């Protein structure tokens, strides 16, 4: 990665650019809505990962092997990963556009995190289980969830548009971090079922693992801690996959931790790795390794994928209020897709025709995504009462019957009543 000004080892407070003493020193007048110099340094610092980062494919497109994470990489794999990332980015951008056009209430962009998600997602086997947060559209893609199934949440037609059990990709979780405990519990179940630690036969094994996705901000939540405590206590085969995208809405990662996030794992006695989250090959190799550790009974494992949220937090957010364009510019140089493209081209692994065909496929996907979105109807009111319980529930049945009867009472009205508007 390119060297950047403001080394993390610089004296002062590398992880604490805005301590009280700093603030006291510059006085309240120092706070003027613009990032202070120390904040600028902190922002840029975040691009400097320290020596501990696992990287296989450099931003310049150079591929090197890593002795701890051996992984066979061929042209086919790289092309497939490239295609995944381009397609995912394309429909992600379409999500933003649909929101701007009023077709979605909100969209949560993954821009910049394609490698972190595709690398992890492609390391999973169908029999593994994944617990996402809410930004994991790339992982969803790898799990076979059709992108259109993601739309309901953001259009307000459902809370989860895919079958989390069949896809082994849980519903999105919005309450920060609390899915991490559910993931740990699921992994405990895998262990209790004897689905780990059995010998391979014909290169195949029935061993399973679970992966939990969460952000840098989430690491502060008690549930994430308890997930790690339980996983360690029960040797649960779970990979704690933290996408450190440097920001939790407007708060830089320095607000959550003084030290790199992967180091949390040391306090619990299991391994942690920091991987270049913009390097899809490294994310794949490290996640593959971590899942294997879990499957063979050596879980849990923590991965910090060091990446960057290149867009706003959501379409409702305005990042110009809290970070500088310089920072975003810097990370553009580290783009996760570009480096794969450079490598493919330079190594003669793909020609223009390939890139064009992926581009065309992406446009088709985007068009289908858009068309599907626009056609999605308002669900019927019965949906309010459906699936609250798995077994019959007389009280809700009564409330539903009463409400439907109430709605029906408008039907005779001359002005073709729409409930919720004045109809009298």
């Amino acid at each position, binding site marked *: 990665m390119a060297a950047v000004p403001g080394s993390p080892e610089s004296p002062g407070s590398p992880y604490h650019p805005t301590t009280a003493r700093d603030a006291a020193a510059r006085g309240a007048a120092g706070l003027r809505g613009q990032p202070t110099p120390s904040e600028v340094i902190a922002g840029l610092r975040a691009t400097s990962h320290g020596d501990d980062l696992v990287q296989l494919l450099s931003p310049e497109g150079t591929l090197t092997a890593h002795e701890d994470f051996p992984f066979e990489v061929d042209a086919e794999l790289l092309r497939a990963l490239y295609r995944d990332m381009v397609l995912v980015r394309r429909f992600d951008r379409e999500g933003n556009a649909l929101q701007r056009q009023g077709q979605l209430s909100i969209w949560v962009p993954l821009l910049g995190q394609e490698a972190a998600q595709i690398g992890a997602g492609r390391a999973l086997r169908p029999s593994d289980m994944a617990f996402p947060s809410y930004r994991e559209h790339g992982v969803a893609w790898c799990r076979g969830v059709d992108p259109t199934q993601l739309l309901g949440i953001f259009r307000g037609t459902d809370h989860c548009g895919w079958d989390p059990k069949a896809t082994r990709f*849980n519903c999105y979780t919005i309450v920060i971090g609390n899915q991490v405990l559910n993931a740990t519990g699921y992994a405990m179940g895998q262990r209790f079922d004897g689905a780990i630690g059995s010998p391979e036969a014909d290169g195949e094994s029935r061993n399973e693992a679970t992966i939990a996705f969460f952000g840098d901000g989430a690491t502060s939540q008690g549930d994430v801690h308890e997930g790690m405590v339980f996983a360690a206590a029960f040797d649960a085969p779970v990979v704690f996959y933290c996408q450190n995208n440097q920001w939790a809405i407007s708060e830089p990662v320095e607000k959550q931790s003084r030290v790199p996030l992967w180091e949390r794992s040391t306090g619990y006695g299991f391994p942690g790795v920091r991987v270049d989250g913009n390097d899809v090959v490294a994310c794949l190799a490290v996640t593959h390794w971590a899942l294997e550790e879990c499957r063979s009974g050596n879980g849990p494992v923590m991965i910090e994928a060091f990446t960057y949220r290149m867009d706003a937090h959501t379409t409702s957010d305005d990042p110009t209020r809290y970070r500088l364009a310089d920072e975003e510019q810097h990370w553009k140089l580290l783009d996760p897709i570009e480096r794969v493209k450079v490598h493919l081209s330079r190594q003669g692994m793909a020609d223009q025709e390939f890139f064009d065909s992926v581009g065309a496929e992406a446009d088709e996907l985007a068009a289908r995504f858009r068309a599907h979105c626009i056609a999605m109807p308002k669900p019927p009111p019965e949906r309010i009462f459906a699936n609250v319980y798995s*077994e019959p529930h007389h009280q809700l049945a009564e409330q539903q019957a009463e409400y439907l009867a109430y709605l029906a009472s408008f039907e005779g009205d001359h002005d073709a009543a729409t409930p919720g508007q004045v109809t009298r």
Partner: protein
Amino acid sequence: MSDGVVPHPHAAPPDSADSKPVTLAKALNMSLRAAMDEDPKVIVMGEDVGKLGGVFRVTDGLQKDFGDHRVLDTPLAESGIIGTAVGLAMRGYRPVAEIQFDGFVFPGFDQIVSQVAKVTYRSQGAWSMPLVIRIPFGGGIGAVEHHAEAPESFFCHIGGLRVVACSTAQDAYDMLRAAIACDDPVVFFEPKRRYWEKGALSLTDAALTDAALTDAAAERERPPACFSSVVRRPGTDVTVVSYGPSMPILHAAADAAATEGRSLEVIDLRTLSPLDLGPVLESVRKTGRLVVVSEAPRESSITADIAARVTEEAFYSLAAPVLRVAGFDTPYPPSRLEEDYLPDLDKVLDAVDRALAF
């Protein structure tokens, strides 16, 4: 039992081969054991539930017999207990999670509100959530802070949960079996100060089935449910309803009132959410007067809900407003004051008097 009236639990148990007096705690223990015997997916988890058998010994001997894969001593963290139980349920287990005391459920509250209660809804039914959260609740045991609370109303306010409370050994056994068999999450309240009281327990097959529990309900032609309310003692003048720990007080009140020539109809709610108001409404249409008894504070509570709904549905039958005997809207006091705080015989009789004076 088909008329919804069961024998007075203080009456001597029928002396038959298949019925014997056991403590409520023991009945729960037997219920867990039977469920675990029948279904290998039933697991028990919580703090000190293993070798210790739980601080109330409800899980006594289970780890010894079923192993530490199925009876898990967990790290000390309630959100962790509930949150991992959710994941285990997704994996196909039927976890029975123990919260050591009522006042310690709150660190796990987010998991209950945001996951336990919503997983099925969010997933449009793809996940069921067959999870039981056992909570010893209520006061009267002279305990320190946080060990004597009645938090049931919080859970009744959460759509997606079922909430029940048992009051007899027989119900403890049957209702816990039914709760474990239920594919929905059930918050299961156990009246801790009644753990050591003995009651008849009959293990006939009928008692084990859901059907038996919902008999009365089915007869009133409402949809099947795991649980239903029950008239414990018929009467004509005032209806008194409660659940869990206060039930013996209601029976005592009915006895005391009888000596003054007043006839109380005693109802055990058993299910707190959804409420099974059928028997209550039927009774109120007869008596015209209702007293609701609970240890929980009053504001935004289960007693308020019963009062509101009964008034709405039986307005013209009521000769008096629904009166409540409940906890004050304070934190639970130091235990030497709990007899002032808790419902007791005098308070119930006073409320009955007031209802009759209207």
